[in-house]
């Protein structure tokens, strides 16, 4: 848990940002190797086709990424730290996990909103358990991906049963996460 807290109305100090890390290097190498393979197989035209398609996709995605970043930053500023710690912190019990799961299920947008907001919750006092419940709920129960992609591709029957079976999983994952966390990092929890 971050100890940094600010008085009401006072902006929090800026977060420290990670420089280019191993994840970027891994994906960069993976992309370079794959692009070379495509070039070998399909020639320069094949490489260009994919590039055009993906640059278009990237351009359409940018405004949403900005919206997600702003959403996360606003939420980190406006949520009162003590209230979040109480309702989503390590001692929030089943209720905290349920709130986290409900929040993940109703959150609009895609990964560009879910992860900035989850990160903001961690910053203002949610514990790993509630945040795991939120992320897992967004990924399994969130309506965005189900409506846009799963229903048309997998069909109604599969999608609905998949969601029904997934319903208990976010809270279970959060509870399991909390259970393991307090045993792995006992110093982080008072």
């Amino acid at each position, binding site marked *: 848990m971050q100890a940094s807290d600010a008085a009401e109305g006072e902006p929090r100090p800026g977060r420290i940002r990670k420089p280019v890390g191993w994840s970027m290097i891994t994906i*960069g190498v993976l*992309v370079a190797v794959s692009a070379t393979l495509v070039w070998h197989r399909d020639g320069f035209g094949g490489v260009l086709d994919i590039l055009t398609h993906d640059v278009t996709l990237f351009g359409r995605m940018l405004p949403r990424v900005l919206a997600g970043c702003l959403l996360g930053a606003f939420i980190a500023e406006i949520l009162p730290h003590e209230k979040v710690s109480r309702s989503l912190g390590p001692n929030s019990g089943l209720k905290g996990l349920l709130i986290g799961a409900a929040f993940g299920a109703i959150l609009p947008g895609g990964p560009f909103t879910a992860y900035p907001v989850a990160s903001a919750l961690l910053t203002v006092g949610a514990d790993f358990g509630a945040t795991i419940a939120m992320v897992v709920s967004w990924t399994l129960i969130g309506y965005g991906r189900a409506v846009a992609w799963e229903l048309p*591709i997998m069909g109604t029957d599969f999608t609905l049963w998949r969601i029904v079976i997934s319903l208990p999983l976010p809270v279970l994952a959060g509870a399991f996460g909390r259970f393991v966390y307090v045993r792995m990092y006992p110093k982080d929890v008072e």
Partner: protein
Amino acid sequence: MSAALLIDLILWGSVAAVGFIAYRNGPKVLKASLREGSMDFVNIVPRIALGVIGSGYIAAVMPQEIITGWLGPNSGWFGVLAAIAGAATPGGPVVGFSIGAVALKAGGGPPQVLAYVIAWALFAFQRLLLWEIPFMPARFVWFRAAVSLPFPFLAAAIAMAIGRP
């Protein structure tokens, strides 16, 4: 495209709503969060550019037939394979769900496909690398992934127990 428009409306509507609350807390709070959000954006754009523009190439060379084969009715170690297949699936939701749909049509067992779809939702390496690691603390990402490991299996077990989907 109306679904995309609706998503954008809800998204920017939410941004405006929380932005307004921040403004009510004082112009200083609004300014600070705008600065934080913009810094996050500037910081994250190169990673997302690399991931989005590069993922097309990764998807183009991944042999999807192999993943589909893993989900066949004779895949005894279905849970393990489904989890690996889910994590290894490149590309966005279209690829993930299409592989699931193909596996179903090709005679894959519904519990296997269910485990695959859930594993994909939880572990797809591209989403982890592209979105979760840049935004979240590294300790959270690996902890979250490790804690999620049992759940594709649990979901498949529930599906087999109730005989659905």
